[in-house]
């Protein structure tokens, strides 16, 4: 108990940074992932190829390597300078959106064919079909996998601790230098994550109930 109270100056702000990382990256990767899914089903073959290459590359690279590229290789490009927090957000977004793209694409496949056929019969264009008919239904039906991907991203935020982002994964190193009991400290960190994941699961269940579709 002492470990938690003595080091509240670590646990509080660090977990808050984790939550901030998660919220910002979550929204960004949902948007970017949906755009990627749109690319992958688009009528232009080149765009489909670009989407597929991007997803294949990022799904097969460890997230740590994406971070290393962004933190050490990106500054060499001398475009805009990113703070370490922003770099972490960008890395998490780029990585998670590849997975979200796949989930959304499978969601698109679950929408009954009749929907798209009726839309085409009405003369809607590709972007209209996707934006107004298919995607809303697709997203609603893949709430569990989406939530699962986002929970995975929450856990991945701990990797940012190695790249100058003071979030929950860095707590252990501070504790070890301060000479505190690392086991108890780590258990408190684990508890923190369990609580966060539980909150997300509750949200997932309530969304599922609201949007469940009888097929």
């Amino acid at each position: 108990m002492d470990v938690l109270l003595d080091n509240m100056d670590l646990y509080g702000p660090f977990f808050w940074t984790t939550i901030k990382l998660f919220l910002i990256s979550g929204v960004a990767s949902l948007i970017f992932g949906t755009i990627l899914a749109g690319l992958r089903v688009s009528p232009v073959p080149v765009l489909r190829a670009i989407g597929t290459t991007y997803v294949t590359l990022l799904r097969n690279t460890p997230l740590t390597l994406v971070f290393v590229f962004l933190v050490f290789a990106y500054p060499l490009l001398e475009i805009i300078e990113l703070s370490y927090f922003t770099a972490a957000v960008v890395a998490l977004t780029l990585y998670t959106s590849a997975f979200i793209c796949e989930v959304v694409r499978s969601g698109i496949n679950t929408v009954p064919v009749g929907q798209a056929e009726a839309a085409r019969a009405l003369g809607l264009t590709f972007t209209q079909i996707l934006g107004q008919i298919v995607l809303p239904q697709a997203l609603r039906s893949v709430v569990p996998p989406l939530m699962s991907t986002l929970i995975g991203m929450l856990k991945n935020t701990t990797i940012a601790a190695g790249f100058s982002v003071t979030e929950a994964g860095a707590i252990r190193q501070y504790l070890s230098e301060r000479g505190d009991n690392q086991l108890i400290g780590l258990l408190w960190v684990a508890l923190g994550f369990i609580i966060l994941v539980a909150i997300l699961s509750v949200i997932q269940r309530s969304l599922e109930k609201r949007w469940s579709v009888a097929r």
Partner: protein
Amino acid sequence: MSNVLFDIPGPKARVRHRLMAVLGIVVVAAILAYIVYRFIDSGQFTARKWEWLQYAQVQTDLLNALLATLKAFALGAVLALVFGAVFAAGRLSDHAWVRGISTFIVEFFRAIPLLILMFLFYYGGPVVGVSLPPFAAVVLGLTLYNGSVLAEVFRAGIQALPRGQSEAAYALGMRKTQVMTLVLIPQAIRSMLPTIISQLVVLLKDTALGFLVTYPELLYYARYIGSQGAFGRPIVPSTIVVAAIYIALCLLLTALANVVEKRQRRSKKHLDTQPPKTTEDIAGVV
């Protein structure tokens, strides 16, 4: 579904598509060219930064690191599969207490980040007197986390099987364990193979976290070489090489999955079950 979203393009649409294709290629090529140009400009492709690859010791160490990654992956994969099968059966047990414990364990290990798990074993262990070498900490962490995810995958697979299978097995007089091991689990594994293999790809990538508990795998070695002042600190070249190796490994594994899936479709043993809707939600992300 994808080809229902748009009509066969007419003349105007073809022109528009060609325009968008050209635009897409130009944008991507410009980005890549700029990146390569900036790297060359900042000296990332000079011979000095890549000379570390030439040395025999470096090559041997790189190979050893690759072997270490594969070792952790192999052991972790086998143990995770066993763990997953055991706890999937536990969650489907008739005894409420077995179900309760299994559910608790599976949900507990799914909620903790893999990083924290590995830290718990490597740094937290000595506090209670249990000193684990990095390899054990990595394999244990991988097993517990991926095993929990695989338990969910197996459970979904078993529940997706037609009820007739288990009913027929019971009608033949098999007991619960026999039904599970002889009839249900083998079929569940076959039908969930794509998801299982994609989770194994995640496991392979997760071995990369081993460097944080000083397990000498690929990423550990990449950071070590990247920090050598004698070679001009080649952080970017070493990362590029190791990223290429990881991508190649994962692609090989995924290609293997596709081959197995195709062969399975043609096999007569395969039951045409609709993969349950919950497959993707279980597969983890890391």
